[in-house]
């Protein structure tokens, strides 16, 4: 696993991608830093991180797009998949390589609050909490990017696809406000989820019995909830959409609240997409 990690991380600096990522990331942060902190004489450095999120929507696809698509295009995946390494090790190694590059960018930008601290008091606690939150949020983005990259052998498609998904995540609050409320929509979504679970299981094990059983189990759970607590379905659609609100959850960190549940949420979100990546890499062998 460390071999793949080293190769991927080193590869960022063999090509221009690593340098480009770091340059653009630091540059954009520097621009916000100059405008918000230096020119406006504000010590609240942590607020600018929420603006940097927009750049991340473009930068993350750039560092994740080739991770798997290039392997399958150059057929080097044959080397990895026939070597004594497990698929999840390959996926994690690539994920950590991209995360390490992202962390590197974050560490470089730490220079700005340090500069700031020479000229007055900075809200240290809030800045640290914002950085931690920002890092975990970035890991979620990277997990999404790796998953999309494993679906195609075309880098450009992977890059644009990742950007599309990240943009939807960025817009999710607005989308949440737009979704209709009502019990019928909630129930409809629940049934849809049961069907998707059934299809996912069928896709994984190719056995109609298991897929019907697993879909059915969730359907029964849904029915029980419907009879015990029907008001659950009133806001189910809204809650479901908002459970993808990766970016708006970040705002808590900006207030200096080190919210442990959000960290757990981020880790779960990333782990979910890493699991999907492992499945999609594995799936190619069975096609």
């Amino acid at each position, binding site marked *: 696993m*460390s*071999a793949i990690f080293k190769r991927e991380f080193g*590869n960022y600096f063999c090509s221009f991608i690593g340098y480009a990522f770091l340059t653009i990331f630091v540059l954009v942060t520097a621009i916000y830093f100059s405008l918000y902190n230096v020119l406006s004489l504000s010590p609240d450095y942590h607020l600018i991180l929420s603006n940097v999120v927009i750049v991340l929507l473009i930068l993350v696809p750039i560092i994740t797009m080739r991770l798997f698509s290039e392997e399958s295009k*150059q*057929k080097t995946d*044959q080397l990895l*998949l026939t*070597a*004594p390494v497990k698929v999840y090790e390959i996926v994690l190694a690539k994920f950590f390589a991209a995360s390490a590059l992202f962390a590197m960018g974050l560490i470089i930008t730490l220079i700005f609050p340090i500069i700031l601290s020479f000229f007055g008091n900075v809200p240290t606690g809030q800045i640290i909490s914002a950085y931690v939150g920002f890092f975990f949020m970035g890991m979620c983005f990277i997990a999404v990017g790796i998953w999309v990259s494993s679906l195609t052998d075309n880098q450009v498609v992977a890059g644009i696809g990742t950007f599309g998904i990240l943009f939807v995540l960025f817009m999710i609050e607005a989308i949440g406000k737009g979704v209709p409320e009502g019990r019928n929509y909630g129930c409809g979504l629940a049934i849809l989820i049961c069907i998707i679970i059934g299809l996912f299981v069928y896709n994984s094990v190719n056995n109609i019995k298991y897929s019907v059983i697993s879909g059915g189990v969730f359907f029964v759970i849904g029915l029980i909830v419907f009879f015990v607590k029907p008001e659950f379905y009133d806001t189910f659609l809204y809650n479901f959409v908002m459970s993808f609100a990766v970016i708006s959850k970040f705002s808590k960190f900006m207030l200096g609240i080190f919210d442990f549940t959000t960290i757990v949420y981020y880790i779960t979100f990333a782990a979910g997409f890493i699991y999907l990546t492992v499945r999609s890499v594995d799936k190619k*062998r069975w096609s």
Partner: protein
Amino acid sequence: MLEVNNLFKNYGSYTAVKGISFTVSDGEILGFLGPNGAGKSTTMNIITGYLSPSEGTVKVAGFDIIKDAYKAKSKIGYLPENPPLYQDMTVDEYLKFVCRLKKVKKSEIQNMIEDVKDKVKISHVSEKLIKNLSKGYKQRVGIAQAIIGNPEIIILDEPTSGLDPKQIIDIRNVIKSLGKNHTVILSSHILSEVQEICDRVMIINNGKIVAQDTTERLSDTLSKTHKLRVCLKGDIDIIEKALEKEEKIINIERQEDKEEGSFDFILETDENCDLREILFDNAISNGYKILVIKPVEMSLEEIFMEVTNSDFECDEENKEEEVSDEKNSEDAENEEKTENISSDEKKESDL
């Protein structure tokens, strides 16, 4: 060492591998022979765990390639059809990466790299980026990658493709020397190559094993020449009549003439007599001259027919397959073309 049992592989409705079973014992060199698209690469991909079989099992040194994937894979070195090379690494960096991937001990990595570079003769390009190497060198780096870590089984998918004649001989020698300590499986569509290197040959067509036997027995059958390409000089009418009169020649095919004043034919006889002698006697008694006699090499497709008709081990099922082969005569023509190309390669390599 390696046990393959009733392997099937479906791609949607198309079945690429149809029930292949075989075993390879320690230290054996097994050759897969078959035209393009016969299922050689798919079979190899399944054995190495890159693809999963739709049905059937593969056991590498007792470990199942699906259930005990980790242990099974650590015993295999694999060179796929396209060598899996990272274009933006140098040869040394790449080999080091493979060493680490295959969990070679840190203290042994340097020796291992020098050793494999020496074996496939790539030491002088070790600082070059892989993308700047020629096809032949890339292939050699691919072979180096496969033998890193001294795996017990080495699987090579068309190891000599893209190499020049001298390199082909070098690589064949490398493979032969590997065969002393390792079990080797290699695939090829070049008959002479398989004959030269392998202890045992399996002929695969349409996803099935058409025949398998030792190379000696296979080549025995093939050495009986009963088809000649000849170039004759004389009066065309006399020649044609004389040839037609000769009872032992069962088939005469007129070819395009290559030289002015001479005539080209392909002559065929049954297996029990030497056509060259017959032709010589015939030429003397009819007063024409023989300019060229050249045995016509059997195409791979003809070998299939030959092998399945003679007393080689083959299943009853395979005979049914043969019938469908005849139906696919269009395919066969295409494959013959491929074989012509490969027999050219053979000539080059024999130089």
